[in-house]
């Protein structure tokens, strides 16, 4: 019987050795390790042996069974790995082919610029004006009179205004500053507002100038607001927008609705102040107009200039976007050429 077991063991191990695939393994399992296997038949015959032989042969039979099982398991694992590798190899794809194109849109570079600028000011407590406080079609009252433009004064030529046939006093606004007046008429200080919007100028269209563009207006009115605060807030803005290392300078200018008034230059981002074509050799780029709100403007909206002071500023979005992205033709923004838009 022992001999018979040895033969079975040798045969089984040989078959395991020669197994090629998982089907062969399954057949071996059935033949040698299942309930109906040869081995099991021998175990069933144990009862016919003498009590002395029984444990010896029984132990030997178990040993054989374990041996076969171990061999089968090892072989099975090897075949699984081999087959898996074959399968993986057969599933090879070209991973350098482009991915499936789930479409992705882009936000317009001007909107991106506005969003960035507005969020910087939101961080300093500025609230975006209500839509109805920033109309593009305006009366002369909001575009000029309430902003302290003297009647029949050359200051009105600072912007080439579009007058309309709607009425002699109805114009397309040349600046977002009217939003200051609308807001101050409806809200009382303390005020800290930011108002992005579209403005119009009666100019011929060229690479440098368009007859409409976007501005961002800012206004702060409160007790104890000073020119130093104006400088502080705008320095913070330029620091965040242009980066730490970009110096600014505040130079005297004139706007009817601010006094004192300033224009703010940032060191040329192209030549870093050395002088180049972009900055007309000056080393500086003008980016902002600003000043302390003129007492006449405050009086006009019923805010007492002896109690409150404020500052206001305005900047051109296209100009800032053009500088930042090295765009040399303003018309690109409005052509909506997908080859342009997809770059941002």
């Amino acid at each position, binding site marked *: 019987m022992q001999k018979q077991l040895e033969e079975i063991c040798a045969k089984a191990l040989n078959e395991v050795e020669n197994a090629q695939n998982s089907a062969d393994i399954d057949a071996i399992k059935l033949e040698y390790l299942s309930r109906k296997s040869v081995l099991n038949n021998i175990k069933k015959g144990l009862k016919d042996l003498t009590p002395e032989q029984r444990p010896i042969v029984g132990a030997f039979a178990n040993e054989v069974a374990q041996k076969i099982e171990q061999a089968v398991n090892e072989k099975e694992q090897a075949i699984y790995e081999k087959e898996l590798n074959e399968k993986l190899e057969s599933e090879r794809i070209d991973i350098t082919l482009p991915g499936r194109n789930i479409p992705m849109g882009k936000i317009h570079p001007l909107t991106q610029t506005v969003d960035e600028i507005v969020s910087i000011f939101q961080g300093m407590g500025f609230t975006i004006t209500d839509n109805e406080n920033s109309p593009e079609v305006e009366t002369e009252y909001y575009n000029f009179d309430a902003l302290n433009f003297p009647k029949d004064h050359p200051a009105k030529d600072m912007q080439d205004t579009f007058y309309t046939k709607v009425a002699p006093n109805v114009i397309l606004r040349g600046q977002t500053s009217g939003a200051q007046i609308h807001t101050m008429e409806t809200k009382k200080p303390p005020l800290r507002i930011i108002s992005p919007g579209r403005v119009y100028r009666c100019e011929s269209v060229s690479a440098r100038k368009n007859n409409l563009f976007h501005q961002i207006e800012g206004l702060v009115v409160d007790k104890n607001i000073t020119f130093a605060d104006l400088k502080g807030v705008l*320095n913070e803005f330029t620091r965040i927008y242009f980066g730490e290392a970009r110096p600014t300078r505040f130079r005297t200018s004139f706007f*009817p609705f601010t006094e004192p008034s300033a224009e703010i230059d940032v060191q040329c981002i192209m030549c870093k102040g050395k002088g180049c074509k972009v900055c007309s050799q000056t080393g500086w780029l003008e980016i902002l107009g600003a000043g302390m709100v003129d007492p006449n403007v405050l009086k006009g909206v019923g805010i007492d200039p002896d109690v409150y002071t404020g500052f206001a500023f305005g900047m051109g979005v296209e100009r800032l976007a053009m500088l930042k992205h090295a765009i040399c033709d303003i018309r690109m923004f409005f052509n909506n050429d*997908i080859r342009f838009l997809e770059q941002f």
Partner: protein
Amino acid sequence: MQISLEWLNEYVDIKDLSPEEIAHGLTMSGLEVEDIEKTGAKFTNIKTVEIQKIDNHPNADKLHLVTVFDGTNHRQVVCGAQNIEVGQVVPYASVGSKVLDRKTGEQFELTPAVIRGVESQGMLCSDDELGVADLKLQEEDGILILNRIFKDVKLGSDVKDVLNLQEDTVLTVAPTANRGDEMSVVGIAIEVATIFSRELKFSKMTCANEVKAKDFELKIDEDVCKYYALAILKDLKIAPSPAWMQRRLLASGVRAISNIVDITNYVMLEYGQPLHAFDFDKLNGYIEVRRAKKSEKLVTLDGEERELNNNSVLISEKDKGICLAGVMGGENSEIDDNTVNVALEAAFFPPATTRRSSKSVGLRSEASARFERGVDMEMVKPALCRAIQLLIELCDAKFEGITETGSNELPEQLITLRYAQIKRYLGLEIPEDTCISILESLGFKLCGKNQLAARFSVPGFRAVDVTREIDLIEEIARIHGYDKIAPTLPDKTIAAEVKKEDLLIKKLHYLLLGKGFYEAMTSSLIGKPLYNWAGIEYDEEKNVEVCYSQSEDYCMLRQSMIPSLLNIIKYNFDNGSKNLMFFEQGKIYTKEEPTTEKSTGVKQRRILCGLVTGKTNTSQWQQTEDVDFYTIKGVIENIFEELKLTQRVLYSPCEDVKYLHPKRSANAVVLGKNKAPVARFGELHPIFRDRLKFNQNVYLFEIDLDALLENVNYNAVLCKELPVYPEVTRDIAFKVKNDVSYQDLAKSIKKLTSPNLFNGADIFDVYQGEHVEEGYKSVAFHIYLQDKTQTLTDEIVDSEINKLKEGLKKYYPSVSFRE
């Protein structure tokens, strides 16, 4: 405006300052310097020579051998110019001289040269080789012929002296609209003297032995002229003005004409006071300043006949106008070559009326630019005296006297400066002494002071722009320097309000972005050509049209976004992009209500619109699919879903919109207080598509954002508990007549199912064709049932589905179920 530093130096000592320092000082304190140009000779060692002999070059047809003589020596040069003749006096550069390269404009030093085998002892020069082409001394190309322009030119003289080129620097400055005083040399000298703490070398001119002119009557309308003076000068000798004056005029960008005209221009540039010279013999002893009558005409100096109106201000004789006051003279009284007697006008025309007058004829001049900004009333007479002095000196004029009317005295204007206000506005304390010395240097007179305040009187040349304490504070701030004010931040923290509406709009933009839409930005200023091209009509009555535009392409605000959208498609199709998804949030504008002083009556509505065309998937190697009506409808549904409005939206056919396919377009209405459609969308009408030559279908949507947002509920979403018991799905399939819409069926299914069990229904098949008779369609729905309180049994589900089927049959007699 251009200013010569050589001229400026006459009034304030600036020799030790570099032009860049001066420019920086002026720019920072408010007079922006736009350009610094060094003038003077760009060449060295060029002498005048006479051409004595011209021979042909032995080896070249187009070259000559020219013998020239400088008064001492003869030289021979090779020259290729065609305009030379014997006897001409021309510029000659010898070896070692520096001239400009004709092509590059760079200066180079002349070296010995052998040209085609013949030695050239230097060269003859053209105007661009000398860098004087700008002076336009001669029209023809070639060598500059000096004796044609300068009759008495001597041989061997330095051409720099002949051409009167002297070293100078010219600044181009841009005075701001409030600063008329900076439109003069003296005005800028005051600024420079203050900025650099120097002495101003200027005192007002008065007339020595002034007499009253006889036999001349003046009359003024004080609304349009406050003061008018006329000086009579006789026996003038008209001639070119002296070189120094011509040079200064040229540096200021003014062409020299003759001594009389040049003197009026010179004094205007110097003092900022425009003057006008009449030919005395063309006048008849009476001058009046008045408003023009309607349709009155005047031929101005430029030869144009101008039609005037009530806003135009005229200098007039009894029967005719002779000058547009403060703007431009009339042809009928102008100075000409035969003028011997002159009436010289100096007047104060107020800013506003001069501006209206200038606008009434659409004519601007150096004079009107100054009057509009405001000239110094107290400088009118001194300017006249300065001109008289120059006329006597340079034209041998005989001064007959002055006649004047009106008042040239300004009422004293006093402003109190409280020191505390300086700190209040600037956030910086500036010492009292500094404040006072700045203002005094700028021409303000200290009239009294105590510990808290000082009082100043305003000089005439600042009477227009400095009227209040805040104006004085600005003067102090700009001279003291904005850079001395240390930045601070407002001492209060204020929280920015974030509006729910703004957040929601952003959310919609990002939704569209995620769907693959590009954001577009189109011009809101459009014109008839675009409307016509697009085939879109607009309402003339409600149109917002501009009065004057550079182009008919930009003359009105749009009433519709559609033309702009179609234009985006055309632009990109033309550039080879065929698969497009764009959205834009823009405004449309219509005149709806009457205009008042403060209200335009124009409505501006926010529109969210977009387009899709081409393939949904633009990958080259994978399957792609054409977009269709349902692509764009999906986007619209997403938007309503994002706004939590899906349950309240009804879609209806949109057959009345011209640009949309009548059978493949829809209106979306949000049920609520306002039943007007908030959106419409669909396929571009084939007629439009063909006319615009689009080779593929285009789908558009337009959402009235303002109307849409009115329907939005901003309340926070409350979370629903997730169900414990499972959902059961049953499918039903049936045939029904074609004209029954999905929307109706879906509504009916919801209505026919018990509300406590109904958990939604999805259509998953719509079929027409084989096995379905003409006029019918086969549809199939998944019906979802769920009970919050128990697991549903088959019996309950079966009975629910049967009830639904019975109901559908009743609602739609054409329904027949497939089992």
